[in-house]
């Protein structure tokens, strides 16, 4: 065979199939062209849809980007599957190219019967190039390359660079759903605030869909539940106003209230901060869907910083939470926004350059002006959080009140129904209802008393913790230092022998008393350690031993002997250490109180832990007077006590904490030591 070279060629029909398969939706095709405008560093890009509610309409996309030269049209725009833009990294404005490799453009251009490109390159101020693609020409052609596309050099219609693409004779209509998707995609490409001179600001023109046009220009800001505006003047005074989504003023504060007399040593600034409540309930009646707002906030959420009108990175970039919104929400989640539920703009006017860029342009130097500015923004967001907390607290109080009155209304309506029933039924129903009502009232009263008791004890606990902090700090420290100084100086002044004879005994007594006091306060503080309330692996024998170590000074002070017999191994369960500690502590307290009710020459408490199958039995018994004057079932009820001044809560807590750990608490009035015996059965995970 004679040598001749062939090459792959494409049938003209491939264009139709490629276009259709790559981009089934019209809106995605248009978005591809808008992305080309973004990649061309345009700041504005207008998408106009004309007569698109029926086939035959047209779309025009016009931008003010850098345009294309004849060579760029020839080697780039007309080459399918390769884009010169996508291969060059960041654009001149530092944007990451968003368009794909040119295939999306093909799909877009094929939406109509013809596509017309007009482009004015930045680098050639007198030129404008025009390209017409008539798709009908391909219908009669065999191969793609058989159709020639002239690049015409014509008179320039505008002095400014830019590109327009018109797609005429659309094959399909463009419905509201497509335009809505297009609007959402434009918002995701847009600079969030629309006032950054270097940002990208697409606009939409769509007859009959004014709401979608507005969505593109206003973004989702009108859907924010709260809009906070805080202003800082040149004298460092701040004022703040918060409005709801209807624009109604909710909270306001002048400088005195907002800053409590503090003057911020920062240049004048204004913070706009929008907080969204991303719940289905809130968005049920809004035009925007919850999903699209969430998607937008994921991309743009956080507080962005603008100095003299220019955006300063990285503040507000994804992952940059310079005001610690997320941290503060983690620490106190109620009514606090995160970077995923809020967006903000801090605009600073700094003509005197008090804010300075770091030399590597990675942000601003954290000098006084910057930290004061951050404090201002931080205080403003805290102001909103505090006010929202107050509102939430008022709402809860109102709900409590309403719950009471709702019950009253329901009671009245039941009474009315009974009154309306026939005289025979009424005679039968009325006494039954009265009995029920009395029982319910008694139960409600008991619950109210129990809640009050818990509140009182919680207050006592908080007060004890405060005192424990204070006493283990300074007073005990000063006493210990003073005793040390007395010892040192007495040894020097009187000599070692005289010190040992006359002074050592009282000095050592003071030391022991201080040590005991130190144990009492650190025991209180240990009970309050936050990590004890976490659900985790809890080693039963270790917790019992720890409580006994803490109680040791109390027990010795009351002449109580404790005998402990631990099970072999390391039985453990999953739960909170605080729950198990509550059980052991309250059973020990119960014994100590019981000892005061009877005289006994030797006070004794026996504690054993024993593994039985998958259970651990914790048994606490004493040789006190036992359980007298109260039924065994009633000892677990809150408020039931036989001790004068007792709270009646200790054993109720034992019962509840045992249930929390999945166990059962039992009591015997007189156990093997003659006093009470308590058995706590707890399911364990291992030994």
């Amino acid at each position, binding site marked *: 065979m004679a040598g001749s070279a062939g090459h792959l060629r494409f049938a003209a029909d491939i264009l139709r199939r490629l276009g259709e398969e790559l981009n089934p939706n019209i809106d995605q095709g248009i978005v591809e062209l808008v992305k080309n405008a973004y990649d061309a560093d345009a700041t504005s890009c207008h998408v106009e849809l004309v007569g698109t509610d029926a086939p035959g309409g047209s779309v025009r996309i016009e931008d003010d980007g850098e345009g294309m030269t004849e060579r760029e049209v020839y080697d780039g725009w007309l080459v399918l599957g390769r884009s010169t833009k996508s291969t060059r990294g960041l654009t001149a404005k530092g944007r990451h190219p968003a368009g794909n490799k040119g295939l999306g453009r093909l799909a877009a251009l094929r939406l109509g019967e013809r596509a017309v490109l007009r482009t004015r390159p930045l680098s050639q101020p007198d030129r404008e190039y025009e390209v017409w693609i008539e798709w009908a020409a391909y219908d009669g052609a065999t191969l793609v390359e058989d159709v020639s596309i002239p690049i015409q050099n014509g008179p320039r219609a505008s002095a400014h660079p830019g590109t327009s693409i018109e797609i005429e004779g659309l094959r399909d209509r463009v419905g509201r759903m497509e335009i809505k998707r297009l609007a959402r995609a434009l918002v995701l490409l847009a600079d969030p605030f629309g006032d950054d001179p270097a940002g990208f600001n697409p606009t939409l023109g769509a007859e009959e869909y004014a709401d979608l046009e507005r969505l593109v220009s206003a973004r989702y800001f009108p859907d924010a539940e709260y809009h906070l505006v805080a202003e800082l003047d040149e004298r460092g005074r701040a004022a703040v106003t918060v409005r709801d989504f209807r624009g109604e003023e909710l909270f306001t504060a002048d400088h005195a209230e907002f800053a409590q007399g503090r003057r911020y040593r920062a240049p004048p600034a204004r913070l706009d901060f929008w907080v969204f409540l991303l719940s289905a309930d809130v968005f049920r009646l809004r035009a925007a869907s919850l999903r699209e707002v969430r998607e937008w906030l994921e991309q743009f959420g956080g507080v962005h910083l603008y100095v003299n009108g220019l955006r300063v990175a990285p503040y507000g970039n994804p992952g940059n939470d310079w005001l610690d919104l997320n941290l503060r929400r983690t620490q106190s989640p109620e009514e606090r926004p995160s970077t995923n539920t809020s967006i903000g703009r801090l605009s600073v006017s700094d003509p005197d350059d008090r804010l300075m860029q770091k030399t590597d342009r990675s942000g601003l130097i954290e000098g006084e002006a910057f930290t004061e500015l951050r404090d201002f923004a931080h205080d403003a967001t805290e102001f909103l959080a505090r006010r929202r907390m107050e509102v939430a607290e008022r709402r809860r109080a109102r709900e409590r009140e309403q719950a009471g009155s709702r019950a009253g209304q329901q009671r009245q309506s039941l009474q009315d129904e009974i009154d309306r029933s026939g005289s025979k039924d009424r005679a039968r129903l009325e006494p039954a209802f009265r009995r029920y009502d009395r029982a319910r009232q008694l139960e409600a009263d008991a619950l109210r008393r129990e809640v009050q008791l818990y509140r009182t004890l919680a207050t006592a606990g908080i007060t004890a913790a405060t005192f424990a902090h204070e006493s283990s700090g300074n007073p005990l420290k000063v006493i210990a230092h003073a005793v040390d100084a007395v010892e040192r100086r007495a040894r020097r002044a009187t000599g070692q022998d005289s010190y040992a004879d006359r002074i050592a005994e009282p000095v050592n007594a003071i030391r022991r008393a201080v040590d005991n006091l130190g144990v009492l306060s650190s025991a209180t503080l240990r009970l309050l350690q936050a*990590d004890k309330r976490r659900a985790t692996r809890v080693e039963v024998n270790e917790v019992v031993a720890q409580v006994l170590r803490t109680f040791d000074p109390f027990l010795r002070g009351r002449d109580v002997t404790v005998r402990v017999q631990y099970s072999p191994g390391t039985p453990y369960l999953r739960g909170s250490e605080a729950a198990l500690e509550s059980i052991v502590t309250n059973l020990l307290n119960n014994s100590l109180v019981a000892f005061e009710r009877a005289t006994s020459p030797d006070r004794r408490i026996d504690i054993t832990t024993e593994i039985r199958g998958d259970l651990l039995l914790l048994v606490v018994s004493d040789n006190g007077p036992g359980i007298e004057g109260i039924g065994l079932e009633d000892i677990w009820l809150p408020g039931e006590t036989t001790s004068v001044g007792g709270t009646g809560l200790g054993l109720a807590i034992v019962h509840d904490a045992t249930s929390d750990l999945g166990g059962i608490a039992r009591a015997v009035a007189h156990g093997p030591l003659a006093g009470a015996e308590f058995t706590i059965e707890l399911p364990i995970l291992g030994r």
Partner: protein
Amino acid sequence: MIGEMTLVLAGSREVSSVLVVDDEEDARRSYSWLISDLDLDPRLVDAPHPPSLEAFADRIPGLADAVLCDHHLRTHNYAQFNGAELVSLLYERVPAVLCTRWEERDIDEIRPYLDRIPALLRRTDEESLRRGLESCAREFVEGRPPSRRPWRTQVHVQEVERDTVYVNLPGWTSLHMFGLRHAAFPPHVRDALTEDLRLYAEVNLGAEAPEDVYFRAWTL
């Protein structure tokens, strides 16, 4: 002052005065008895001046040869910073010991600064104060002793709670859980914290007790 002496630390550093920083007047005076019993000159700070942490720390080398500082400085409206922050800023400038009650809460608060606190004292007597100051001066000259030397190691996040992140150190012992505040992590690490995450930090793996362990230079 008659009878005043000089303590010589690390073979050459002379200390004749000790600055006492504590938020309560009686406590400051009680520390001064100890210092004067060592024949050194106690200098009591009635109020940090200037009040800002950095400015006060900068001024300290001109005020005394060494520092004895309590960790709690905010309780009595004395300072806007705590002792650990101040002492860590004095690292390699002035020998400074930090006194603490050794509550777990205190240790958690001190831990982020611990790599720059050579001496943490629970009990303040003559011997422990002298030894603490000596450790500081020696570390400034000879570098960290083996128990305080940092090693890059893996840290395993066990739980992430509202205000605390619980981690353990497989390279030290898996049995102890360290509770670290969220603020102890740099922001890029803080945002990534999740249960079961393994990340890296420099840790003094030679430490003998959990309260001596510090973490620094976190990376994902």
